[in-house]
């Protein structure tokens, strides 16, 4: 195809207008949702988790998580008597297909679901050199995959091991707290699929959210509090051996 000078002169302003529209991006996706009215977190009640793997499968289905990678996963802890410092942890295929029967009958055994802690002061967003990962005004840590250059800094920075590099896109990927669901008034896929209510989405800015009464009346912890990440994934009945 040959383009002469006259056509170039016409094409250039058209391209400029189109480029402007591309940069302007999409309109507001959830019109009835106000960013500043929410502050999202999650409650995980260890005493209710049965290790069925429903959350892992639901997350994979909802978010097209690549095979062999996990935005959420379940670990099984075996803590032998008097050996709290050396728990034996297994998580076959992220707990996606449940867990085989326990071989050890002694000690303490329990399941720990894990995912992004959506930290208020997250190390992963602080190390991103291009502004591709960020915390939204409503407290969710997200990745802009159009901006991510795949340098993996954030994957190394996350103290909870919650990020991975998408093998096809070669961009960082992580739990979005089902941002496309919670902004529409739905709960996350993992919470929706959890049969025992071990996972509960929590809006910490909503005074009517049952999370407030729960936090007041239970011994709730976060993982690695000494990292001062401001984690918002609250664990009830968390054993001291969990790391």
């Amino acid at each position, binding site marked *: 195809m040959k383009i002469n000078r006259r056509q170039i002169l016409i094409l250039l302003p058209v391209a400029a207008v189109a480029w402007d529209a591309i940069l302007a991006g999409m309109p507001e996706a959830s019109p009835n949702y106000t960013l500043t009215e929410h502050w999202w977190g999650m409650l995980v009640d260890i005493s209710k988790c049965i290790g069925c793997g429903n959350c892992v499968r639901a997350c994979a289905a909802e978010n097209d998580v690549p095979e062999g990678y996990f935005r959420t996963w379940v670990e099984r802890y075996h803590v032998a008597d008097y050996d709290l410092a050396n728990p034996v942890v297994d998580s076959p295929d992220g707990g996606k297909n449940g867990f085989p029967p326990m071989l050890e*009958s002694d000690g303490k055994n329990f399941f720990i679901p894990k995912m992004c802690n959506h930290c208020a002061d997250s190390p992963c967003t602080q190390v991103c050199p291009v502004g591709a990962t960020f915390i939204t005004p409503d407290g969710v840590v997200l990745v802009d995959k159009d901006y991510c250059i795949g340098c993996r800094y954030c994957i190394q920075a996350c103290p909870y091991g919650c990020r991975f590099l998408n093998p096809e896109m070669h961009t960082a990927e992580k739990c979005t707290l089902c941002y496309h669901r919670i902004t529409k008034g739905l709960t996350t896929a993992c919470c929706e699929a959890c049969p025992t209510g071990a996972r509960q989405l929590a809006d910490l800015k909503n005074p009517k959210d049952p999370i407030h009464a729960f936090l007041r009346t239970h011994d709730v912890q976060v993982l690695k509090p000494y990292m001062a990440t401001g984690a918002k994934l609250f664990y009830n009945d968390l054993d001291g051996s969990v790391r």
Partner: protein
Amino acid sequence: MNRFKDAEHLLRVVLVFATGAIAFLLVRAALVPQSFGQYGHYRGNAIAAIAAKPIVFAGHQTCEACHSDIRDVKRQGKHAGVNCEACHGALAKHTEDPGTIQPPKLDTAVLCVRCHEVNGAKPKSFPQVVTKEHSAGLPCETCHQPHSPLIGAGTKP
């Protein structure tokens, strides 16, 4: 005026720098998206783009809008807190087009066992069975209706 006989040189340097600075600002204005910096050091429109992703799980509220009979059965029983899609799987597509897209048939031999097979790491209060000893190979729904599993509790499916 003698001291500044080379003023023209200075002017040229200033012009070169000014041209460079203006070119930089123009290129930056063209390349940085308008929404960058709207909420922080990131592209503000990325939030809307991520929020625009379609849902896969419909949510039990949507299911119950049509299947209120099942909801009422479920409310009476032990599975009141178990959401529809925990067993039936992600069905947002079915809610968009209930006529043509039917939920898959379920196998209680897989689904019931997934939660209720005995495992030492499960909470002690959670009802667990050793399937082989418990049912002697009979399918679970011979005795238990999944929507209200206590024996004799629910007669409707």
